């Protein structure tokens, strides 16, 4: 993979595939307010967040500002990162998503409250199906790479295009029901592949 920076080169290539290392960097930011760890996170994620936002249609300058905001939020909220709940890239994806809704759409994003007395509890995870979110994330990524082309296409369009599924259907020239069934299949396949490798 192509990287920038002389010293950062080898490290960058390394941390690209090492989610546990990224999690340790976030932990160092949270616990020690470690600026060097933050710089590593910034160099890894800043350009990716910016690239992701631009693929979602943000103008270059908007994407730049948002990406900086997102990284600042990473610094501020590092203590809220929970490696038992999500991989670092997933956590940062949700920060970028929420900033985008807040800044570009000027809307709120309602979410369930994990402390809500009405919250229906999760079923207890069985011991043999436990794996770290970092491992799960790596497998989800591999599984996505093996999806059939038609499923992968509706999946990526769903993330990158800020349009309803009815418009995705129109663009691809397929019925809405087909878009939905392809997404259903994609979810099942990814879930099955992630679970399968555990046994």
């Amino acid at each position: 993979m192509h990287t920038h920076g002389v010293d950062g080169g080898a490290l960058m290539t390394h941390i690209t595939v090492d989610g546990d290392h990224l999690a340790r960097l976030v932990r160092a930011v949270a616990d020690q307010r470690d600026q060097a760890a933050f710089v590593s996170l910034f160099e890894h994620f800043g350009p990716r967040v910016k690239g992701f936002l631009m693929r979602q249609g943000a103008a270059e300058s908007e994407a730049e500002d948002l990406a900086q905001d997102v990284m600042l939020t990473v610094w501020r909220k590092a203590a809220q990162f929970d490696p038992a709940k999500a991989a670092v890239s997933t956590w940062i994806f949700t920060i970028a998503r929420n900033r985008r809704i807040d800044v570009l759409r000027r809307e709120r994003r309602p979410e369930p409250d994990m402390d809500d007395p009405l919250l229906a509890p999760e079923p207890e995870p069985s011991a043999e199906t436990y794996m770290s979110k970092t491992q799960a994330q790596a497998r989800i990524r591999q599984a996505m790479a093996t999806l059939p082309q038609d499923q992968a296409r509706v999946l990526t369009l769903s993330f990158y295009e800020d349009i309803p599924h009815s418009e995705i259907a129109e663009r691809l020239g397929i019925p809405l029901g087909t878009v939905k069934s392809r997404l259903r299949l994609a979810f099942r396949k990814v879930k099955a592949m992630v679970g399968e490798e555990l046994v």
Partner: protein
Amino acid sequence: MTVKHHPSEALLLAYAAGHLSEALSLVVAAHLTYCPDCRDIVAEAEAMGGALLDDSPPARMGGDALAAVLARLTTAEAAAPPRREAPRGAASGGGLRLPAPVLDYVGGDPAHARWQWVGPGIRQLDLVANGRTRDAARLLRLSPGRVMPHHSHTGLELTVVLHGAYTDEQGRFARGDMAELDGAVEHQPIAEAGDECVCLVATDAPLRFHGLLPRMVAPMMGF
């Protein structure tokens, strides 16, 4: 309590990707409160988003980006940490218990909110009303046995039951159950006898009502 009617994976994915409107997101958030299975699918979708971020082609940041952000770190430090409010769901009273994200929009005890009379046995409380995008979410309170005006719609209509139950062409919907209707589907929910039924309904396009009475009721409901 087991939830029987769920949103499609496509809808949960749109929510996870951040592409659902505020009103539609509110209905999904209410359903997620009652449904760990759908929370699981949203978490899976978010992990897919994280994987796409991992694989995203990096775009060069501005030359002074890092310096600019580092300069803001200390300011960010000084900013007050977000205040953790008391568990919001606990504040609900009057016998009607609403999920925390819904209660946020009601802004207090639903018993004291300004419910509007829109027809015999039907009251509503607007929660989201965006005139520009026509995005709308409202609580509907139906007396036992009350029939909702017959309607169809051009966009997406999401309904989640928060109290009681109703029945329509698709079956019985009780607390936590969610209906997802798109296109020209018509349906006619009937609140179950014995208890009132409270639903959260969101649309991203105005509803069309059929029949004389509903046509009179529709303008009042603001659909």
